[in-house]
């Protein structure tokens, strides 16, 4: 068991690092990345309260406990078929506590020339595609968490869509975290490569089955070649005691279009860091987000839209609904590099604060070094209007129905472009449960 006592000035995470070497020996490719990752962790430090990018949230909850490696757990896997998406029948990869589950996965619905599978297997087979693309697109320099993810790199999803191939079925990447008696650490690395003119819809789905504490650290890398179109929906529904720290790096090439929609409703503490890096002229990308949090939940989104070449159209609408003592943080960086002209960038963070004890920190951050640029940005914090609620109640809707409708109406703009119907339905359901908890908590007060 990877469990040791804490030493002075070290967190349990560093202690855990001593055990990453036990993963070595199965693939040179992975061994090398792990070695570099472990080095990276040793050469930097995990975020401290004074670090500018971490000053609004506390990681004490992450540092104060010890964790075992998820792979050391004895896991009895319950029936998870309820969480399958009907549209992704036979287009699904399932990872349980970070480890690929063959029995739950099926990719029969996908065209034969699409390379899809788990990284552990592809690495063992010596896949050249994997070697070419793994660990290339997550540019998180000096970030201990990305290095930590590399240091424990073991498994995850790999998808390569060949030129001009349009994949009809949305691909469901289902990451299940099980209930357990011990706190555990799970990690995954996923790589999606969309070659020229290809088209794919992805649903990255993180689900916690219990109410237990664990630390999940997924890193996703995407590469969009010329004219590629990738729609990427991420749903985070971890256990309400979990810590979810995620990085998503996307490289977008000429004429490509990356649309990403991230929905956060789970975890006690979550941090999303999407980072879109423009690699050539004439691209479009969207980094929208919806956060629904209550109780003691903390959700933090730090995004980077890096405009490195001319002619980009980028869009970020980030909406948060906050109840109870929940705390939402948004920091959206927009970089426009020198000579990256004709950039049209939109960014807005809108917050619906339902309680007096909720907190919102929001900070748009623009760094523009070109002159022919249109960047609009803004942030608002509002409440549910009593006259709106009364209007709907006077039409016969009860308090719950009225609030649900208004919260859903607020949220809709960030999720209406998700094209997978069952995902839309499950989000309606999440809004319903959220509103139900909101009313319950008011009754309790």
């Amino acid at each position, binding site marked *: 068991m990877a469990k040791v006592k804490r030493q002075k000035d070290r967190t349990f995470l560093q202690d855990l690092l001593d055990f990453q070497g036990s993963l070595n020996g199965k693939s040179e490719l992975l061994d090398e990345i792990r070695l570099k990752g472990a080095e990276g962790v040793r050469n930097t430090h995990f975020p401290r309260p004074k670090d500018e990018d971490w000053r609004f949230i506390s990681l004490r909850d992450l540092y104060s406990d010890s964790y075992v490696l998820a792979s050391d757990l004895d896991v009895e896997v319950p029936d998870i078929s309820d969480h399958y998406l009907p549209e992704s029948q036979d287009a699904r990869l399932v990872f349980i506590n970070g480890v690929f589950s063959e029995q739950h996965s099926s990719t029969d619905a996908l065209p034969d020339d699409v390379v899809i599978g788990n990284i552990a297997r592809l690495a063992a087979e010596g896949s050249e595609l994997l070697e070419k693309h793994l660990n290339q697109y997550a540019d998180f320099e000096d970030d201990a968490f990305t290095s930590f993810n590399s240091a424990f790199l073991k498994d995850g999803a790999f998808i390569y869509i060949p030129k001009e191939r349009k994949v009809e079925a949305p691909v469901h990447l289902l990451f299940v975290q099980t209930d357990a008696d011990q706190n555990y650490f799970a990690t995954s690395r996923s790589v999606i490569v969309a070659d020229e003119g290809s088209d794919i819809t992805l649903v990255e789905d993180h689900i916690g089955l219990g109410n237990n504490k664990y630390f999940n650290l997924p890193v996703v890398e995407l590469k969009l070649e010329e004219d590629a179109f990738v729609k990427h929906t991420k749903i985070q529904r971890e256990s309400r005691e979990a810590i979810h720290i995620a990085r998503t790096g996307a490289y977008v090439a000429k004429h490509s279009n990356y649309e990403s929609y991230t929905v956060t409703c789970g975890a006690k503490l979550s941090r999303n860091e999407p980072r879109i890096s423009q690699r050539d002229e004439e691209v479009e990308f969207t980094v929208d987000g919806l956060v629904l949090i209550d109780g003691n939940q903390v959700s933090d989104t730090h995004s980077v839209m890096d405009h490195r070449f001319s002619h980009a159209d980028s869009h970020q609408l980030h909406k948060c609904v906050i109840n109870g003592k929940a705390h939402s943080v948004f920091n959206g960086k927009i970089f426009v590099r020198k000579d990256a002209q004709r950039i049209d960038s939109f960014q807005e963070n809108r917050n619906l604060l339902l309680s007096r004890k909720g907190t919102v920190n929001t900070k748009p951050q623009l760094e523009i070094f070109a002159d022919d640029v249109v960047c609009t940005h803004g942030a608002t914090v509002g409440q549910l209007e009593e006259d709106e609620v009364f*209007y709907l109640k*006077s039409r*016969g*809707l009860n*308090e719950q129905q009225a609030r649900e*409708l208004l919260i*859903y*109406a607020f949220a809709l703009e960030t999720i209406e472009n998700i094209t997978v119907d069952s995902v839309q339905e499950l989000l309606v359901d999440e809004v319903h449960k959220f509103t139900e908890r909101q009313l319950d908590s008011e009754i309790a007060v």
Partner: protein
Amino acid sequence: MLEIRDLHVCVEEDGTEILKGVNLNVNKGEIHAIMGPNGSGKSTLSKVVAGQEAYEVTQGDILFEGESILELEPEERAHLGIFLAFQYPVEVPGVTNKNLLRQAYNTIAREQGREELDPLQFEDYAYEKLELVDMKPEFLDRSVNAGFSGGEKKRNEIFQMAVLNPRLSFLDETDSGLDIDALKTVAGGINKISNEDNAVVLVTHYQRILDYVQPDKVHVMIDGKIAKTGDKDLAVKLEDQGYDWVMDEVASVSVNGEQQ
């Protein structure tokens, strides 16, 4: 149908008394008009009947079909068949007219023990009602009042009334801000919805809608009370002479009252 007895109401926040003893009886099959100058309490009366929580009833009662409704939530009043057309209809972006109205219709139907309608049945039903207010089918798929013109919002209120088919409707200044064509459309809708089983109370500042909707009774509200009740002729007189003469009458009555 509706019986309001000596109703006193104040604003919950600061205790300002707005209604100072309103008495009003509305029977089924009737159309009433409540007129009065700004600030006389007409709008407050409609909101209090619909259950707006910003007001506190300090005295008196509101009976609907013989039962007090003071303790009922706004939605419970809606379930009984009470409807308020808002003076300033609220915009709800993201919620289509169709979705709101189907949910409202079915909730009320369920409460009243009537059959609910599935989306297709509801669409057919709603199309019929659209004609009453001369609205196009696209209206159903637009977000509730979002980006509507003033006239469209008012027509939408009457459309909602037609769909929900209430027993008692308070129309709070539904005629204000309308050009003459829109006014005729709105009035036509009210006339088509009005029948011997329901009742309509028009709360209005102006007489002109009464050229198109024939009221059975006209009330004048002054300073939180119904100061005078008459028929259509009263409305015409108000239009010609304004409210001053009614106020003078009220003042002399209260002076006399004090002298006694």
